[in-house]
């Protein structure tokens, strides 16, 4: 049974504004670690706040467990204080006038728990997060990372079934962020909480999530496992948003005379004439192979030649920039390239690693079936 169910959820902040969130249907399963991923301003925070009840809906319905907590048509609104969720704000929003201990204790006091139990639970959660020693300090006396732990502890203390996190790691430095990521994953296992995690950082989403929901301009683009999102992006937006360096896109529909585009067009016409309406083709940088003595071109591959116009070492791997008349391609490799800038190289791409999008930018099902017949397509 899904834990959280959003149906046709819409949010509009003002009569003249565009929808911050439009017609959102999303199911978040019990015990899931769901990442809402998308560029800044795409409506992630708004979605999270609507789930928490801090923002009311313009239309639609939200159900948590078996209870409808928010519905415009049914006129239902359960206030945030009755939804029994935890929310960690991007700014942490610790209460400046309470000590760390009192901050953590606040929710338990509201629940009128006996003192002994409160102390035990506060002690446990502070220990788990390593903030015991600051228990008598005030929030302003802690560093960003410590504050972030307190914000988490405050929510975990009441042991909510749903934990909502709004870019909680974005204010931390790189090392701390890595550490906190591991910690979040551990907490997820330990407390068995359903987590909804908002981020604009694809790397964070990929490493943490069991499921990712990609959003853009208030609209849900795709829901799937991290691998789904990366390997089978549902549309051009998702393909381009996820992946670094970004996916190479060849615009076939635009009628470009560039050599590579002409080649690609004839490749698809000759081999996959059944695919109608090809708008563009996406090629992940790691899917491009350079032809060498040990790597011959497979018979069915899409191949071409180009000049190496740049080699960028990124520590352990390399980004190679290829130029053919009017087009640039990026490829990544984990082997030290044995070529030099200025050299002409042959390259190829296996058909099953090609992403074909139609004129409207949607992933072509026909292409999936033809290019990768080994996989069962639903």
């Amino acid at each position, binding site marked *: 049974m*899904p834990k959280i169910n959003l149906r046709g959820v819409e949010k509009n902040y003002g009569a003249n504004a565009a929808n911050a969130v*439009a017609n959102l*249907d999303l199911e978040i399963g019990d015990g899931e670690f*769901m990442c809402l991923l998308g560029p800044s301003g795409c409506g992630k925070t708004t979605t999270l706040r609507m789930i928490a009840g801090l923002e009311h809906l313009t239309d639609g319905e939200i159900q948590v467990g078996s209870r409808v907590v928010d519905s415009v*048509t049914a006129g239902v609104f359960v206030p945030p204080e009755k939804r029994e969720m935890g929310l960690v704000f991007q700014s942490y929003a610790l209460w400046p006038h309470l000590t760390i201990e009192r901050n953590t204790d606040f*929710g338990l006091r509201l629940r009128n728990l006996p003192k002994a139990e409160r102390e035990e639970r506060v002690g446990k959660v502070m220990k788990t997060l390593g903030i015991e020693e600051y228990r008598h300090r005030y929030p302003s006396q802690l560093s960003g990372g410590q504050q972030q732990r307190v914000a988490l502890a*405050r929510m975990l203390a009441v042991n909510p079934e749903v934990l909502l996190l709004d870019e909680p790691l974005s204010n931390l430095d790189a090392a701390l962020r890595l550490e906190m990521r591991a910690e979040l994953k551990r907490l997820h296992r330990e407390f068995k909480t359903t987590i909804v995690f908002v981020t604009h950082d694809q790397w964070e989403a990929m490493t943490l999530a069991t499921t990712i929901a990609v959003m*853009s301009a208030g609209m849900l683009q795709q829901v799937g496992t991290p691998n789904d999102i990366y390997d089978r992006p549902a549309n051009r937006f*998702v393909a381009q948003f996820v992946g670094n360096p970004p996916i190479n896109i060849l615009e076939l529909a635009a009628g470009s005379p560039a050599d590579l585009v002409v080649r690609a067009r004839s490749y698809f016409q000759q081999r996959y004439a059944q695919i109608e309406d090809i708008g563009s083709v996406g090629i992940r940088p790691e899917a491009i192979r350079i032809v060498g003595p040990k790597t011959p071109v497979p018979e069915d591959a899409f191949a071409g030649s180009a000049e190496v116009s740049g080699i960028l070492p990124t520590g352990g791997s390399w980004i190679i920039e290829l130029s053919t008349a009017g087009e640039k391609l990026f490829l990544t490799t984990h082997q030290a390239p044995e070529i030099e800038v200025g050299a002409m190289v042959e390259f190829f791409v296996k058909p099953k690693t090609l992403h074909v999008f139609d004129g409207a930018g949607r992933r072509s099902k026909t292409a999936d079936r033809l290019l990768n017949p080994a996989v069962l397509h639903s």
Partner: protein
Amino acid sequence: MSGQLAANSSGSSSAACPPQLVEGGRQDAADRAPASAAQRFRYKLRIALREPTTAIGILTAALFAYLIVVPIISMLSDAGRVQLGDERRIRMEVGDFTWYYIERVFTSRVASSLFWEPLLNTLSVAFGAIIAAVVIGGLLAWLLARTDMFGRRWFATALIVPYMLPAWTFALAWTTLFKNRTVGGQEGWLEALGLTPPDWLAYGRLPVTIILALHYSPFIILLFGNALRRFDSQLEDSARILGAGRLTVTRKIILPLMLPSLLSAIVLIFAKCLGEFGVPYVLGLPVKFDVLATSLYRSISSRQTGVAAVLAGSIMLIGVMTIMIDAKLIKEARRFVTVGSKGAMDRLNPLNNLRIPATVFAALIFVFSVAVPLSVLFLSTVMKIPARFDADNFTLDYWIGTDLNTVALQTGILLSPDLWNAAWNSLRIVGVASIVSGLLGLLVGYVVARTPVQPLATFLRQVTFLPYLVPGIAFATAYLSLFAVPRGPVPALYGTTLILMLALIADQMPYASRAGIAAMMQLGKEPEEAAQIAGAGWSRRMISIIIPIQKGSLVTGILLPFISGIKGLSLFVVLAVPSTDVLTTFSLRLVDYHYTQAANAVVLIIAAIAYLGTLLGQKLTRTNLAQGLGN
């Protein structure tokens, strides 16, 4: 896991770019119709009514409509209706519409003494005071902010003192020095020394202008000085590098950029002068020098309600026009302004051999605006005969004596029950009003920051700002108009302490609500939302989160109005009766009865309270006075 299932069915195999939505969603998603307008309204209403925020907002809005808007409307309508007692003179029924009062004030034979002369006097005094204050205050601000004058830190505090004291403190000091035989009672010091000061020096336009100029120069020092300090010296440097001389730089670069802050200070002074009652009352009466405020007061004392309403309406109109002109000018001037960048001034202009004259100038201003008036007031309360410095002329009788040979007030002021009564009244009335307005201000801030009903927020913001446009004495007139007689279930409040409290609360709301809104906006929604998520209902959030966090600004929001209320005069002079005397009206009454020493002693007490209160406020809030300006 079902999430995975959902993902498989709705996501990975088929998805769309905007604006199409994800295909293959569940069946019910596809055929759900959007909510109807009625459903949306019901949902919004439920949310709006769920929390007390909206209800409180509506209640406070109704309260302020009654305490602020209704009195003003009542007063304005008095201006056009026959008042009780005038029906035979006007030959119409009470309550009928009439032009009589408007004609009387603007075009009749007495119009010139009722309105036009007082208007001219008000304008001349205000502009005189503004020009003098800009010259003196501007020079001092520059010396303090941008030069190496001696003792700048000390002067920065000392020169602000005149503003902390009630303006008519200086008027009383002036009469103590310059009073001549035109008026009865104890003679002035100069007269006692055998030099009779001419009337033009002792009373009227000149002393009023000088006193207001000295009293309001601190406005310029504070506001203009702040702007000067924030001024980016790189702008000046670039002009100098391009070859502009020092004067050119001042004229072409610094002054235009300083204009907005100078304009606000000037407008603020004008608005204050417009409602200034105490100074012209003390110094103008002997020579029949009337300004609008005293003319209005005279109409009220002689129970000419209709005329008073027209006069108060005119003062209010001038106030509104001033603020509107200010808003426009500031908007114009702001277009050029780039004050406040990082390269603020830390470099000072060396005064070289002007260093000592500059310091002497600042010291002289301090002597004339603080030291002399306060010492004169104090000495006058411990001397039997003015200006005679023999040892046996000194006495503490006026403070703590008994069996004094006077008609009333036969004991020293500190032993007089009237003083303690007035002090208690001051404390009680001003204290209650300040606490209530501070809390209401925070509440208004809360509603404005939180209510989902935008029009309510806008209305609250505007209605609480309204008294700012209405000088105190005109506002008091409005209260008199509404509450002097019983109306419906509300009994006549005139003569009670309640009317004073209500008027004071309403009068302080612009500052209280501004402070409350700023505090709530600065706090943001999140700490409260975090408590809400944790499970705290509305009242718990108020008690455990909002009020404790806002404690500091609440203290300021109570203390600042308290200080301005303690030294305030114009509201009380209209609305207080002998039994509800506060310190200020008590001292004014003593002035009327020519008990000079006692009056001066009371004023010194008020000045001490105001000064200490301001210091306390600064200490508690660690801010400087500029933020409390306008109170």
